[in-house]
């Protein structure tokens, strides 16, 4: 008697998806990590020391030429701020950037110009950064803070 085993039914399951899912999950975790560690912050670098207005101190050396200064007075107005540039008073950051860019073009040596931001004591730091941003967008390279307006 010839015994025959039951005919094995073979279902075609297709390609094995487990390694694919495994690698995709690992790539997903990798991309999540890179996204979360991505720097959402950057730095505004100042190379102009803060100037403290005052009398006395060490006299300057004989051949010292004071740098050209562009002073920006910043005052709080309501919940915002206003920047005095020359005889103009500007409260819009975009207009401020355009004004400073126009002034930048007028200086014979704009890279030697020091932009000094002189806020009053009550101006919020976030507004000062906006003014700093406007000066940077106008391509001034030397920007710093002063204390001339601190005790006004």
């Amino acid at each position, binding site marked *: 008697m010839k015994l025959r085993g039951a005919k094995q039914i073979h279902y075609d399951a297709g390609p094995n998806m487990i*390694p*694919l899912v*495994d*690698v995709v999950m*690992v*790539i997903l*975790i*990798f991309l999540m*990590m*890179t996204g979360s*560690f991505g*720097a*959402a*912050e*950057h*730095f*505004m*670098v*100042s*190379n102009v*020391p*803060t*100037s*403290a207005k005052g009398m006395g101190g060490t006299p300057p050396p004989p051949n010292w030429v004071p740098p050209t200064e562009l002073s920006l007075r910043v005052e709080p107005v309501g919940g915002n701020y206003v920047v005095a540039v020359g005889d103009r008073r500007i409260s819009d950051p975009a207009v401020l950037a355009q004004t400073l860019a126009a002034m930048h073009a007028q200086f014979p040596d704009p890279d030697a110009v020091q932009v000094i931001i002189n*806020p*009053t*004591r*009550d*101006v*919020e*730091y*976030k507004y*000062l*950064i*906006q003014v*700093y*941003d406007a000066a*940077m*967008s106008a391509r001034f390279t030397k920007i710093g*803070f002063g*204390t001339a307006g*601190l005790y006004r």
Partner: protein
Amino acid sequence: MRRRPMPPVREGTVNVTPLIDIVMCMIIFFMLVAKIGVNTGSDTTIKVPDSLLGRDLSDFNNTLYLNVRAGPTTPQGPEPLITALVAGQMTELHLRSGGDNLVDTLKYLRQGDPSRNLPPNANFGVIIRGEADMTYQYLAPVLLACTEAGVRNVSFVTNKIERPE
């Protein structure tokens, strides 16, 4: 019964899936280890102001992070709350009152200390992480302290935003 020989073994292509799997796990591991090992002393609870422009700094070796918040108003004037990672410990620095003094700390790091064989460090920089809503009366004394200590490289941490179209 007729014995049939074993069919010949044919090696297929190498299965690279486990290789990719392990490599990705190792990459994630080293990324996590590298990030955990570096502590710059930055206080991430401080909400920094937004800015469009700025630079990416990658080298924090020669810098000191100063976390600055608005503090109490003392009879001598407004006193900011300043913390920094000094000698591996988060330390509260003061402008006037007792405890670790900000100017002394900055002078020590910038100008060195011959008694402790610490040379001057001309490239020493300060990174200020200031609260967006604090007023200038709290920031100005910190900037003046940096100037008094001879620190020329001062950077401000800001939140990068895109220009609105």
